[in-house]
């Protein structure tokens, strides 16, 4: 038969995964991300197997007679840094910090943003007013400055959250720089941007008839939120999460660049750029390699975010 129904002659999309993989943006971004994720996960294994150099080791052969970094060679894939360490290995290991902090920071921001946005949108009234003004206030503070201020507080002191007359030392918080404090800072800086979008979506979903119909069946507010509102705004949440991760990774790199990220000697892309900056003319690979790594990661998340938006949420434009 020549006049086949075009709908049936299309390749059958096997559920949501098929639909996603047919989107080129998601496909490219996803491949990049899988590559980066694998690198992050397996880096120590490669080192152990001797296929990747130890990122912390300062090689005597890594510096030339003037004490300057050497260029790419058989031993060092893209060259060494100013301390004679392998730049390629350090960039690979930097993926671990970037992805962990980026994703954990995104989750923190999403958690706060979704809770505040849903409560404000669903409750409405005074609660909405207070939460949204609080959000606005947070939005007026420039993210990077706020993050620097937060980072300044992390000076190794111990914060006693319990009253001094009670020996509840499990409530003690040690304020120190590290991955945990870094992703918490990033989360606290990034959440206000999420709230408005989430709230707007909640406002529109909660006016739809099926919410009233469900309420008429005896659903509680909690049930309406978790069972009906959240599943309906999930596409938006997923798209925003992917886009936000690109931002948190940039913020992490920025903070590391300013020297307030995960402390040395942990290999982070931002710190690698700072360290390489004085050698930019003589040994540009010190800056270019971690820079490319940042671009690739951010690009991967942005591609996935835009692709997901096309697939999941075609009506909303960026």
């Amino acid at each position, binding site marked *: 038969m020549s006049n086949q129904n075009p709908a049936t002659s299309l390749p059958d999309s096997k559920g949501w995964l098929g639909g996603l993989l047919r989107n080129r943006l998601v496909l490219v971004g996803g491949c990049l991300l899988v590559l980066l994720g694998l690198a992050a996960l397996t880096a120590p294994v490669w080192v152990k197997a001797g296929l990747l150099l130890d990122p912390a080791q300062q090689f005597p052969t890594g510096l030339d007679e003037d004490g300057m970094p050497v260029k790419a060679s058989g031993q060092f894939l893209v060259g060494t840094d100013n301390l004679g360490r392998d730049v390629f290995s350090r960039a690979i290991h930097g993926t671990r910090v970037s992805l962990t902090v980026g994703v954990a920071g995104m989750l923190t921001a999403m958690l706060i943003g979704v809770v505040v946005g849903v409560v404000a949108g669903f409750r409405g*009234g005074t609660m909405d007013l207070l939460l949204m003004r609080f959000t606005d206030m947070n939005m007026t503070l420039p993210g990077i400055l706020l993050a620097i201020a937060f980072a300044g507080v992390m000076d190794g002191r111990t914060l006693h959250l319990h009253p001094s007359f009670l020996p509840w030392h499990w409530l003690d918080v040690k304020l120190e720089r590290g991955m945990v404090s870094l992703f918490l800072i990033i989360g606290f800086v990034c959440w206000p941007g999420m709230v408005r979008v989430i709230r707007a979506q909640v406002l529109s979903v909660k006016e*739809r*008839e*099926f919410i*009233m*119909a*469900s*309420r*008429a*069946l*005896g*659903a*509680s507010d909690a049930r309406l939120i978790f*069972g*009906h509102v959240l*599943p*309906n705004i*999930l596409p938006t949440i997923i798209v925003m999460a992917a886009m936000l991760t690109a931002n948190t990774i940039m913020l992490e790199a920025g903070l590391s660049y300013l020297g307030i990220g995960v402390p040395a000697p942990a290999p982070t892309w931002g710190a690698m750029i700072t360290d390489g900056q004085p050698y930019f003319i003589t040994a540009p690979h010190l800056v270019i390699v971690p820079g490319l790594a940042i671009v690739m990661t951010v690009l991967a998340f942005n591609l996935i975010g835009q692709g997901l938006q096309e697939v999941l949420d075609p009506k909303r434009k960026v």
Partner: protein
Amino acid sequence: MPLLEIKNLQVEFGSGAHAARAVDGVSLSLEAGKTLCLVGESGSGKSVTALSIAKLVPSPPARYVGGEILIEGRDVLKMSSRELRDIRGGLVSYVFQEPGASLNPVFRIGAQIKESLKYHRPAAANDTEVIRLLKLVGIPAPESRLRNYPHELSGGMQQRVMIAMALASQPKLLVADEPTTALDVTIQAQIIELLGDLRKQLGMAVLLITHNLGIVGDLADDVAVMYAGQIVEHGPVREVLQRPLHPYTQALIQSVPDLEAEVERLTAIPGTVPLLGSFPGGCRFHPRCPKAQASCSTQAPELASVKAGRRVRCPLWDSLLEPQTVSHRA
């Protein structure tokens, strides 16, 4: 004791000087197993009255200013949210106008019916019961429909699913708020027939909200006509349709097209329903009433009992009623 008794219900939107009374002193009662139709144009307050039965009108903006809504003797307006959740979908179930919009688009219909079971009959929340319910509302091959999403069903099928969800809890009162308005005519007839069958089969009371007088005669025991937030006429369906006493009811019945009569134009009621908050003084219908007297614009008429079970809000009903007024329906 009637199953449902609404006493002098008053619902306002807004507050202070801008308050608009959408429902003004509505009193109704409904015995178990009976069917009452609430008829009126858009904006007459019939939907607000119906939603109030389970306190479903969002407040704010709505405020319950006065009156009582007794279900099995308990006042809904004084209930805690916990008690309300038991009433909603338990004693009283709703079927809404837009079946397509009333189903959550992201879940399969089987799961949605099961959700309704979980709230009120958790022991029966299984596929067998869902299939039984789907069969009950006349969905063919229910086993294969369980895993369908709402958009995969036609409007009529969606409305049957909504009815199945409403019936899941075995309610004593089914409130159907214009259940057929969004459906095409042949499907309308099927849904009305289904509601009639289910009512007999399950012995539940039905409160049917409609602006379609055509379906009133098929289904109702009693009918109440609402205009601008008030009941203007109330009585047994046969009497009201054959001998309407209020000029508004008469006008409504005359505007139903008759299949046999050859007419050039449909009879329409001049003017429109007054906007909420700007009801005219005196009788609220007087600006549109063909039989209005001078006194109608000053004296607000009471809803007076004409005889047992028959009420009308027009002091002139006696003198207005000529024997041939509505020959076309009789």
